[in-house]
């Protein structure tokens, strides 16, 4: 079970990262900012028209481009 993509999560919902697909560079960038498997996060805002999404993770907020966010798989 790979979970669902982060972008399908509604605003205000919390979830836990189960896996990150995509290249080493992308997953490294996410890991540097504290987005690793097992991390809990909350979707704060989603910009309209497939814009970026804001997540709250480890007490701070990060803006993730939609493409990058679609590579993060979560589980409620």
């Amino acid at each position, binding site marked *: 079970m790979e979970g669902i993509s982060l972008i399908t999560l509604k605003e205000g919902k919390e979830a836990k990262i189960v*896996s*990150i697909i995509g290249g*080493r*560079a*992308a*997953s*490294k*960038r*996410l*890991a*540097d*900012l*504290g987005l*690793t*498997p*097992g*991390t809990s996060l909350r979707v704060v*805002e*989603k*910009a*309209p*028209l*497939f*814009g*970026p999404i*804001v997540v709250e*993770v*480890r*007490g*701070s*907020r*990060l*803006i*993730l*481009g*939609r*493409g*990058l966010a679609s590579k993060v798989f979560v589980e409620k």
Partner: protein
Amino acid sequence: MAGNANVGKSVIFNQLTGLHQHIGNWAGKTVEKAEGTLNYKGYTINVLDLPGIYSLTTYSIEELISREYIAVQKPDFVVNIIDATNLERNLIFTLQLLELGRPAILAVNMVNLLKKQGITIDIKKLERLLGIPVVPTEAIYRKGITEILDRGLELISSQLLISSLPKLKYGKEVEQEIEKLTRFLREVESDYPKRWLAIKLLEKDREIEKLIGTQAPEVIEEARRLCLRLEKIHGHDSSIVIAAERCYLASQITQKVIEVTKPKNPSLEERLNDITCHKILGYPVMIAILSLMFLTVFKFGNWSSGLLGSIFIDWQRVYEGFFGVSVFSSLGWAILESVFSLIQIALPYILPFYFFLYFLEDLGYLARVAYLTDNLMHKIGIHGKACIPLILGFGCNVPSCLCCRIMETERERFITGFLTTFVPCSAVTVIIMGLVGKFVGIAPAFGLYFLAILTIFGLGKLVSKVLPGEPTELIMEMPDYKMPHFKTVILQTWFRLKEFIFIAAPLVIISGLVIKFLQIAGWLDLIATILSPITVGWLGLPVITGVLLIFGILRKELILVMLATLLGTTNFAQILTPAQMITLALVSMFYVPCVATIAAFRQEFGWGKALAVTGFKILFAIGIGGIVYRLLSFFAQV
């Protein structure tokens, strides 16, 4: 000094050394490392400000530089500055730094913001858990700065053996692998500590694999085996497993030292965030804020520029009265004129523009602009951060070129830089409004802006298709809103203004002299005649525009000033048809970046690219100018 971006490293650095690093509520400004010296209690301390980074991998050049510096140059101590309001995320970097095994001090900055957020941090406990000195600081109020130095000096004089520091342990399985690999590395010679090398090998760090591979290829094989084992157990790439271990450790430490009592009512900052990032409201709010900024800057600019201009004319009389009118005195005057022309852009337009911008930056709004426009920017192959230099470009293209440093990759930096030179700056606005807006109508004037934006989009799409490489996704911190610190904003504005003058001055003065020389030698008319097939034949403009366009290279609004001088009237409608006015404004907008912009572009991207962009712009402006002129003339006849 090392740490994440946007934690106040540069503020502390400036306070220590009195040098002036770029500061603002925006991640990723210190791209090159800055050095400075200070004397404290009889010691001479060299301070080095490393770029803001999130890890010590080889993902970016900044990270590579930083870790090499720390491991190879072996500074006496490293000050790791972290954001108190963002402890957990910042500690991930701290853990990586500690792996490098150099003496370190943790400066927990911005502790003044904790109270508002209902957070308390147990500093003593944090010190114990990490095994290094921890100093709370409020950098902008100069609190805790001397403590950092005191603890640092203590650290040096105590000769504390680094190996005696309590080791922070990761999870059991991972620790076992690290120990196994460390044993294999015993024979290997390196500036880096063995444990760190082992961790990096488990993270599949290419640089380290290369380094070890030449000495002991068997270690690499062992590392590969261990990586595979980790991957089998956890189901993720081994580098992710290690990263997750660090994150877990950071969160455990954080939970032990932090106490949060959430304020019941949403704070003012919170509400401000809700409005400015709102799905629908966010956009009109953004447009309103930016329009207000442009309008204010422009009104102020026109007023003060006129004021400075009249002072300048008086000075010219004084100068001529003193030195007389000769070839040499006019060349001398050309130098003064160039310097003055720079001041005349810098003070009226760039100064207020910078002030507004740094105010918004310090407030935390610029990150919201990046958030709101990311989608749009993606359509032209760059991401939301690029919006900042593009907005800057409306004030002046010079700072916008310099601002492109915030983009992550070379490719994106160039695309953004290239596009910013097409943004109509305040000088171009003077032409558009003074020529088209005044004599043709406000609608065609806005039409020109619209055309500029369309061009930027079209070219952006084209360039991002043509240039090799993948577009990078936006990933950045969303800083909390905070009340801007006025002293910081004002200092920032001032230092950037100085930078602008220093970069632009040499080229502006040289080209000022060359043009003056051409004028004295009487070659300007000749050049205008040579250019006439283009200016008259293709663009349908009077012959003198050739002269105007040459002057415009120096400073674009000179096109309008010279037009008035050469025609002997400011009522341009007497001489130019509406179609000619629009064409002239259009060509002025696109035809060449002014020398100051070329200078800035060269500094950021090199002569080759600067000249290529200039050449492209000339051809582009001539092409589009002729087409627009024909279309306009055609419709005027109908």
